[in-house]
């Protein structure tokens, strides 16, 4: 009998899992439908470049349905909620979609309204975010008019998509104002709720050094409780204040509202509790999750969705065949970090191994955790890979789902540097 596979969300994770499943499963054996509220697929890594005039907003958007293989149905509809007990998706227009297997690929949602004052006076005038296309475009105009003063880049709280993006913004802003000849008039400050620029020691050391080198001051353990756009200040929950002439914030993130409306599906923040190794949701055996929508303890990033895709597609076919799932996902994450002036760093890590130096994917390869022109070119090439390899659900040559160890300078056993840490 033909199985019905429903995928909620036509973003990175939803698109690539639908395409992978379509290749693995005979059309007679499975119908695959991808459901999304709109037909605009945004290349999110490109948003970072928009404020600096380095990417044209229109070039980042393509139709969602065009990224799907023949044999995958695209249904444009908003989801009201999932009824896990009934194996049924309820759409906002009142119709229902029954499924045998459901994949939640609804991503993360920005909730700027959850921070007091953030969307109040000054929002999109003095206080911006580049995490949306509209925000990135508005910020480009504001950046081009910015003649000097204090510019702060602030992360409200974790988790956020692409946690290195705000750091990259700092590096690119340094280059940008240098090129405009007004770097000496701009005070750049990075504000983070974490106790360092990055959570993992080796990477934190490297990125902190880079911030210092570029004259970006850092305020740590600053948990923003209020954004006062009119007064130009951030106030932390513990009563500290920091002023700004312009603020670039990464708003709080939640899971999608339809997940939050579905009884038993999401956690307190609306992310789907998911087995970190098999990617099966904890809500029901026939419900799986991929990408930013999950609660798995790794970065919310496109590379993660890609690496998850290989494991998840095979686990769904195993599930349909009545076979046990393979606990094969290791948390593999791979990010290019744009460091300004046409250079970039590369980090590669998983649940157990923090980002370290060395080369990727093996002894001959891109330098890890070190600025290079080659990595910058890699970051630019990634856009092509995204549309032509990741979304179609194909493998990147020489890069497997599991994190490679060859080429990495891993801390020796017994060294004070923790080689293993839970997150």
């Amino acid at each position, binding site marked *: 009998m033909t199985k019905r596979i429903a995928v909620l969300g036509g973003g990175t994770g939803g698109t690539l899992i639908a395409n992978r499943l379509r290749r693995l499963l005979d059309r007679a054996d499975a119908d695959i439908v991808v459901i999304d509220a709109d037909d605009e697929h945004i290349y999110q890594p490109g948003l970072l470049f928009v404020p600096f005039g380095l990417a044209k907003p229109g070039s980042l958007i393509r139709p969602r349905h065009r990224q799907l293989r023949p044999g995958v149905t695209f249904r444009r509809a908003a989801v009201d909620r999932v009824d896990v007990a009934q194996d049924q998706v309820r759409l906002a227009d009142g119709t229902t979609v029954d499924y045998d297997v459901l994949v939640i690929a609804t991503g993360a949602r920005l909730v700027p309204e959850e921070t007091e004052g953030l969307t109040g006076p000054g929002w999109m005038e003095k206080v911006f975010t580049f995490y949306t296309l509209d925000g990135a475009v508005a910020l480009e105009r504001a950046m081009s008019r910015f003649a000097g003063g204090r510019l702060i880049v602030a992360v409200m*709280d*974790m*988790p956020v998509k692409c*946690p290195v993006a705000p750091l990259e913004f700092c590096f690119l802003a340094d280059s940008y104002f240098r090129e405009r000849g007004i770097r000496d008039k701009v005070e750049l400050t990075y504000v983070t709720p*974490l106790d360092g620029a990055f*959570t*993992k020691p080796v990477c934190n050391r490297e990125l902190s050094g880079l911030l210092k080198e570029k004259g970006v001051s850092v305020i740590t*353990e600053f*948990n923003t*409780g209020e954004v006062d756009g009119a007064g130009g200040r951030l106030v932390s*929950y*513990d*009563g500290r204040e920091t002023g700004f002439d312009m603020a670039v914030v990464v708003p*709080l993130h939640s899971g999608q509202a339809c997940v939050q409306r579905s009884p038993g599906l999401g956690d*307190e*923040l609306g992310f789907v509790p998911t087995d970190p190794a098999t990617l099966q949701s904890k809500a029901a055996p026939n419900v799986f999750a991929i990408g930013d929508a999950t609660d798995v*303890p*790794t*970065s919310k990033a496109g590379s993660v969705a890609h690496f998850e895709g290989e494991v998840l597609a095979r686990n769904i076919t195993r599930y349909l065949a009545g076979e046990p799932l393979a606990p094969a996902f290791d948390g593999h*994450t791979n990010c290019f970090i744009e460091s300004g002036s046409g250079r970039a760093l590369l980090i590669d890590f998983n649940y157990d191994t923090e980002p370290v130096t060395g080369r990727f994917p093996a002894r001959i390869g891109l330098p890890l955790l070190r600025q290079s022109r080659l990595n910058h070119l890699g970051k630019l090439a990634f856009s092509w890979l995204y549309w032509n390899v990741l979304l179609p659900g194909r493998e990147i040559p020489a890069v497997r789902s599991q994190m490679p160890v060859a080429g990495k300078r891993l801390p020796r056993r017994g060294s004070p540097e923790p080689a293993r840490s*839970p*997150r």
Partner: protein
Amino acid sequence: MPTVTYAGTEVTVNDEGFFADPAQWRPEMAPQIAAREGITELSERHWQVIKFMRHEYEAKGTGPTVRVLGKTSGVTVKELYQLFPKGPAKLAAKIAGIPKPRGCI
């Protein structure tokens, strides 16, 4: 790992003072741990958070972040910072004898 004596019992803690074994914790230890962190008196509101931390740890194997605490513990983030200045999630976890909440990447 270092050991500390709370309420007459020797317990193992890590370098930052978090319990290595949450099972060693007993409620009567909490005021002493709190005092070391500069909290001289544990109010009913403090206890609400401490009990919630224990409960969450037992259910999920990790303590909640401050944002989740603010949504689920019945105490707002603002008040959490008044009760446990600087870092409510970290401080409340330490006093509740559970490991440091895992930060996200």
